[in-house]
């Protein structure tokens, strides 16, 4: 989106390097299924989008699904989530290096029938490798059933901003979705190991320095809850922070409350965070939320060998009730 600060966190180099887009990007027409970002053009993608559209059309026409959740061109460059119900609408779909959003969050909206008396809808969803882990998470927590979701898996070479690969993509080593029904594209031949290099600087700080670092970051937070709303793992019916009778936290939009909100949310996502970076992407204040969540990812994976959403194994912290129901607390 225009002037939306995109994070270009480079490995090594400067700890955080942010670039702000200052020039207007070309406005797209709806049928121009391809967005070029700062001159970046990826040849194959034009035929990939044809494959995606054909698949979407087939699924809608056959009645296999009633809705395809995908990407379409946004108004001022970039892409945005799209919900396609009509086979003729599939031409709106795009697939390019600016499909940042994690669409799996919207699966929560499809858990219930649209109208009383109807069935839970079948949906298809364009799913990047990182986002696919969220589907495993939702499956492991009994949120969705596998047969209701048709996964259009996308092989992914990373998302770009300002001509550079985004930082999370630089360390990402899942090149194809961890589960899918159909796979579009060939996995690019990229071999990286995620060594949590991004945490090194923070881990090198003293406790006091770290506190100061986070307080300075949280100071900008406006408690808009975009991070929580965008997160596929944040789906409590009534969030602790929305409860009228919360004993934990006041409603003040002030530093202690913001600090508490973020640490609380991070804890609730420990072992569940799928590292899609969506919370950090949507944050209007560029608070590096992924650093916080990734620290816990690292701890949980080192201590318990669990990494959120890699499989449908539930996170080690849940209680499994006698009837098989999964409780997060």
């Amino acid at each position, binding site marked *: 989106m225009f002037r939306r600060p995109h994070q270009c966190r480079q490995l090594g180099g400067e700890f955080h390097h942010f670039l702000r887009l200052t020039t207007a990007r070309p406005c797209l027409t709806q049928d121009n299924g391809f967005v070029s970002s700062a001159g970046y053009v990826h040849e194959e993608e034009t035929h990939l989008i044809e494959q995606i559209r054909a698949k979407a059309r087939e699924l809608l026409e056959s009645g296999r699904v009633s809705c395809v959740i995908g990407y379409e061109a946004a108004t001022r460059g970039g892409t945005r*989530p799209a919900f396609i119900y009509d086979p003729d609408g599939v031409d709106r779909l795009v697939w390019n290096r600016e499909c940042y*959003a994690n669409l799996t969050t919207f699966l929560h909206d499809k858990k219930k029938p649209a109208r009383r008396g109807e069935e839970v809808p079948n949906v298809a969803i364009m799913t990047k490798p990182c986002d696919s882990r969220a589907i495993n998470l939702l499956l492991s927590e009994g949120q969705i059933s596998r047969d209701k979701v048709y996964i259009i898996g996308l092989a992914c070479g990373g998302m770009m901003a300002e001509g550079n690969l985004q930082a999370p993509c630089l360390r990402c080593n899942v090149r194809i979705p961890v589960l899918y029904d159909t796979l579009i594209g060939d996995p690019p031949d990229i071999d990286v190991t995620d060594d949590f290099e991004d945490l090194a600087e923070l881990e090198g700080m003293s406790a006091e320095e770290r506190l100061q670092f986070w307080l300075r970051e949280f100071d900008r937070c406006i*408690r808009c809850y975009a991070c929580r709303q965008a997160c596929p793992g944040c789906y409590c019916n009534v969030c602790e922070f929305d409860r009228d009778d919360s004993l934990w936290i006041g409603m*003040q939009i002030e530093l202690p409350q913001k600090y508490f909100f973020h640490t609380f949310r991070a804890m609730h996502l420990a072992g569940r965070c799928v590292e899609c970076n969506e919370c950090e992407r949507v944050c209007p204040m560029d608070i590096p939320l992924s650093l916080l969540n990734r620290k816990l990812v690292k701890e949980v994976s080192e201590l318990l060998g669990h990494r959120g959403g890699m499989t449908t194994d539930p996170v080690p912290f849940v209680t499994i009730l006698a009837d098989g129901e999964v409780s997060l607390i």
Partner: protein
Amino acid sequence: MMFMSHSSLTAWLDELAGERTLIAPRDVGRGHIHLRPVAGSSEITLEYDRPDLSAKEFLFPHTERLMQVEKRSDQVTLHDRFLEKGQVVFGLRPCDAHGLVALDALFRDREPADAHYTRRRQKTALVGIACPQMWESCFCTSLGGAPDDPTHLDVLLTAVEGGYAVQPVTNQGEALLASAAIEEVTDLSLPDIPRNEQVPVLAADQWPAHFDQEYWSRLGERCLSCKLCTFVCPTCRCFDLRDEPVASRTDLVLIERMRVWDACTAPNYRTIAGGHNSRPLKGQRIRNRYYCKFCYYPKDFGPLGCVGCGRCIDVCPVNIDIVEMLNTVYAMHQERDTVEAEAET
């Protein structure tokens, strides 16, 4: 035309900071500029487009302590909490000041007047800086504003070679400038700021016809139900009220009753105690936000609830774009007119 050099501006701001709370654009990290209280001119940054949040937060702060309740055994005493010290908001943009017109109409001019807002308004002076350009998402000129509009400010500064052109607007502005080193310059002309394309906006009474369009549920589908667009908006004013404990001893309990920002876009905005939610769908909520701005607000209070600052466009993570919405609703209206005209012939 009056002129103030950079150094005079610095001196003036430092002096203002001595006598009142000076609120000015400050770099708060990662390239974000917020209006924040500053100790002096050295903390101010003058390189910014629009501050992330509007000046609203100093008239209608995100957390306003309305009163303190002091509870001793079975006695309670209520202590009103009001802004005491005067404040100057420096560096706000003309659209920020325009936004206060909407808040004035609701909080101050509509009976019963809100005591806290009214007090803050009285104690606040607004020194704006004209926008050097209209940024891509700006459409203030479609809603009666302009990047160089002095109307709702006390003083407007415009960057020119070597300093600022100074336009006092109100008596309060004149008084504020009394201590500033200003020169009278004859050959000073203000820059011409190119205007963005006009966005068509329907009149308040044209909106109801489009309330039941399917468009709203389609638009709502990608909405995340966060509070972002409303928090950055200079006119959105939904709030919540809470009691929060501050101190508790056996003989004394201190409680603050506070008003905090809320948003009609949030999922549980309308959930009542029994659990019933009268606006359960995202499309209904986003529609309410826009209807509030363009239909209800002008009908109920006079001014529009949007000043075209474009902030909500820039921050929305899923590209819910108010300009696209306005264009779409306008197109729907045109189409309806055509259908009606055809039906008549």
